C-alpha cells in the first residue's frame, strides 16, 4: 500500500469536489487564511479607533488636562481653535475634554447593555435549546412577546420605569436585546447539538454538561461574539437616542449621547457641539460593526 501523500496537499478541501470551488482554498499559508489584506484594511483602523477610545475611557486625564465640567462663562460657545480643539459648549466647557471624559460613561453603558442582553439572552437560549419540548416552546413564546414589542419602544418604557441615567438606559437597551440574544444562542445550541461531533461526543459517553461546556459553547462563541460586537455598536446608538429623547444620561456627566442632544439646541450657534460627539459615536459604532462583521465572516468560512 502506498502512503497517503497523494492527498496531503488537498487538506482543508471538502472531501468531494464542489463544482466551481475546486482547488480554491488550498495551500494557503495559515496567516493569510486568518487575515487577508482586504480584511486587514477594514479591521486595523477599527481596532485603532477602539484602542484610542478605550484609552480615553481608562485614562482620560492622559489626553486632556482640562476639567470637563469646568464652566468658564466668558468662553461660552467658542468655535474650535488651538486652545479648544473641539470648541466650547454653552457654559464655556471644553468640548474635547468632555468628549474624552464622556467615553467612559458611553462605553460602560454599551458594555452594561450588552452584558444584560448576553447574560439573560444566553440563559434563556441555552435553557430553551437544551431542554427542548414544552420549556423551549414556552420560552420561545416569551421571546416572541418580547420581539412583538419593538425593542426601542420597550427600551423607552423600561427607562421611564427605572429612571433616567446612563446605567438605566443601558439596562433598558440590554433588556430589549434579550430576545435577539436568546434566539441566536438557541439556534446556535440547536445547530451545534445537531452536529456530528456532538453526536460523536454523546457516543463517546460524554455527559450533557461537558458537551455544553466543551463543544456547544466554544462553537457558538464566534456567532455570539459577532453579535456582541454588533450590539455594542447598536447599544451606543440606542443610548444616544434615549438621551436625545431626554431619557438618558444625567447632567453634567459628558456622555456622548447627552452631548449630541445638548448640541442640537445649538445647531445654529455652535454646530461643533453636535458634530464632534456625533463623529465619536459614528466612528466607534462603525468600528464595532466592522469587527462584528469580520468575526462573522471568519466564522462562516
Amino acid at each position, binding site marked *: *500500500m502506498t502512503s*497517503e501523500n*497523494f492527498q496531503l496537499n488537498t*487538506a482543508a478541501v471538502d472531501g468531494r469536489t464542489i463544482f466551481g470551488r*475546486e482547488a480554491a482554498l488550498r495551500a494557503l499559508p495559515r496567516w493569510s*487564511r486568518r487575515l487577508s489584506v482586504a480584511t486587514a484594511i477594514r479591521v486595523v483602523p477599527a481596532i485603532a479607533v477602539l484602542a484610542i477610545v478605550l484609552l480615553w475611557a481608562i485614562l482620560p486625564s492622559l489626553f486632556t488636562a482640562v476639567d470637563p465640567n469646568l464652566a468658564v462663562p466668558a468662553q461660552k460657545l467658542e468655535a474650535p481653535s488651538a486652545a479648544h480643539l473641539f470648541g466650547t459648549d454653552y457654559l464655556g466647557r471644553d468640548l474635547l475634554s468632555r468628549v474624552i471624559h464622556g467615553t467612559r460613561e458611553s462605553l460602560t453603558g454599551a458594555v452594561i447593555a450588552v452584558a444584560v442582553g448576553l447574560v439573560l439572552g444566553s440563559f434563556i437560549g441555552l435553557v430553551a435549546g437544551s431542554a427542548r419540548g414544552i420549556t423551549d416552546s414556552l420560552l420561545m413564546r416569551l421571546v416572541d412577546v418580547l420581539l412583538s414589542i419593538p425593542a426601542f419602544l420597550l427600551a423607552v418604557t423600561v427607562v421611564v420605569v427605572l429612571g433616567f441615567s446612563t446605567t438605566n438606559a443601558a439596562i433598558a437597551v440590554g433588556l430589549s436585546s434579550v430576545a435577539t440574544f436568546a434566539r441566536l444562542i438557541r439556534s446556535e445550541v440547536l445547530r451545534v447539538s445537531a452536529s456530528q461531533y456532538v453526536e460523536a461526543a454523546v*457516543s463517546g459517553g460524554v455527559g450533557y454538561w461537558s458537551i455544553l461546556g466543551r463543544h456547544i459553547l466554544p462553537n457558538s462563541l464566534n456567532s455570539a461574539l459577532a453579535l456582541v460586537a454588533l450590539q455594542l455598536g447598536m447599544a451606543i446608538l440606542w443610548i444616544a437616542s434615549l438621551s436625545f429623547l431626554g431619557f438618558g444620561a444625567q447632567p453634567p456627566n459628558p456622555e456622548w449621547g447627552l452631548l449630541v442632544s445638548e448640541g442640537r439646541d445649538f445647531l445654529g450657534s455652535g454646530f461643533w457641539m453636535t458634530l464632534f460627539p456625533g463623529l465619536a459615536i459614528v466612528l466607534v459604532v462603525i468600528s464595532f460593526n466592522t469587527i462584528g462583521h469580520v468575526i462573522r465572516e471568519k466564522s462562516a468560512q
Partner: protein
Amino acid sequence: MTGTVAALHPALRVTDLSVSYLTRGTRIDAVRGVSFDVEAGQTIAIVGESGSGKTTTGQAIIGLLAKNARVESGKVELEGTDILGAPAATLGDVRGSRIALIPQDPTVSLNPLRRVGVQIAEVFRLHGTVPKEQWKPRTIELLERVGFTDARKQVSAYPHELSGGQRQRVLIAIAIANSPSVIIADEPTSGLDVTVQRRTLDLLDELQRELGTAIVHVTHDLAVASDRSDTIAVLRHGQVVEFGRTAAVIAAPRSDYARHLLSSAPSLQVSDRVPRSDPAHPAEIVLEVSGLAKEFPGHVGSPSFLAVNDVSFSVPRGSTLSIVGESGSGKSTTARLLTRLIQPTSGRITLLGRDYTEKSERQFRHRRVAIQVVYQNPFASLDPKLTVGQIIEEPLKALSELKRTQRLASVSDILDAVALPQDFLKRPPRELSGGQRQRVAIARALVLRPDVVVLDEPISALDASVQGQILDLLESLQQDFGSSYVFISHDLAVVRRISDHVVVLNKGRVVEQGPAEAIFTRPQSDYTRDLLAAVPGGGKRAAAAAG
C-alpha cells in the same frame, strides 16, 4: 468517425490548456498544459481525485470558470473554432446550442422557484431555435425522450417535487434540447444511488448514440470511467499523467499514479478476505437486534413514516456485519438506533447480553464503552475547536477511570495504531486531510477498545486512493483489537471486500441477509440482483468496443 467535417476537425480539441487560481494573492496552478481531442459520438473520461484539476478543465471548456480563475494558455476548439476566452455574446450563442453542460449535483442545479418546463424551454427561448407556440409540446417531447412517463403533468412540476434521478433527467433534457455537438458532464451521477446511476448513464449512452454527441465525462470514479468512456485522461495536480484508449489504460496503466488508483479502487472482484467467524465454532454474539422498528411522526397533515421496519440480525465477536442499501433504505437510522442516539419505536437491542432498549441515557452512558461509532464525514465529526489529542482523549475522560498520564499514553498508542505521527496531537483538525481526519475519528472510536464499532459510511466521503488505505487500516485494527464492526454502506464493492455477513435493506425492511459470499454470488432477491448489476466497473464499453 463519420463525416468529413469531423474528419477535419474533431468535435472538441483542447490544446495546452492551463488555468490558475488567484486566491488572496497566492497563485495556484490548477490545470497545466492539458491537451486532448474528442470525436463526435465519442466519450472521454477525465478522471482524477479532488484537487486534480478535472472540474476546472470542464469549466474552462464551457467558459464557466470561477471569478478568481485565469486561463494562462491554451485553445479550446469547438468544431474548429476557438471559444476559449471568446466574448460573452459569442459564448452565449455557443452555449446551450453547440456545447452543453450536465452538472454534478442535480438537487441544486435547477432553480427551485421555477417549473422544470420553463427551465427547459428557456433553451429554446435563448437560442430562438423553436417558435414560442412549440415550446411546450417540444418540452414535453424532450421529457418523454429522457424517460418521463407522465411528462404532460411533470412539465409543470417544481424541481423539489422530483427525485434526484428525475432532476438529473431534466438537466439532461436541457443539455440535449438543441442537439449540441459536445456535452460536458461533470460528475453527472456522483450523488445518485447505484441503480439510478446506471439508468442515467444508460440514457446518456443511448442519447449519444442517437445524436452523435461528443461527451467529456468528468469523474472521480474509475469504475464509471471504465464503463462509459472510449478514452481516458487521468489528471493529477493539473497534469495529464495517463492518456489512452480506455481498455488499454484499465488493462495496463503506464503511470504509477494510475496504477495506484486502479489498485485502490474496490470492485466486485472476489474478496480475499478470510472469514472472521467460523460457522463450526460460533463466536459469542456481542450485539443482537430483533424486530427493530423506528417510526418518525409526520408533519402536520402528512402520515408518519416507518424508517426502519422489523429489522433483526446479530453480530458475532470479531466479525464484520454490513448493512447495505440505497438512500432512504433506513441504514443510517439503524446505525443511530444501534448507538442509541435515537430510541426505537419497538424491538430489542442486546449488547453483550444486556438489553438496553429501555434504559435511560444516564443508565446507558457507562455502557457506551462497549459500542462506538465512526461517521461518514470526517469534516463534520471532529470538533474544530479541539486538538486531535483532546478529541481522542475525550471518551477516555468520560468513560474510563484512567489518570491523565495513563490517558495520554493510551492516546499516544492509538495514534500509532492508526498510523498518524505523534506531533498531530497538538494540531487542530482543520490542518488535516480528509483521510487523516478519518484516522483520528477511528482512533477516537477505538481508544476505548469497544466490543462493537458502528461504521457509518466511513469512506464514502474520501478520495478513491484514500478509501483503500482506510479500509486496510480498519481491517488490520480489527485483527489487532478484535472488535466487531457494523459497517453501513451503499457501496457493494466495498462491502464485498470487508464483510463477513451482509444485510440488504430496502425501504426500511430487510430484503435478504446472509454470509457475504452467498449474497454476492447467489443473491436471492431481485432487488439485490439489481443492486449488483448496477455496480460500475469492468470496462463495459471498452469490452463492447473490443468485442
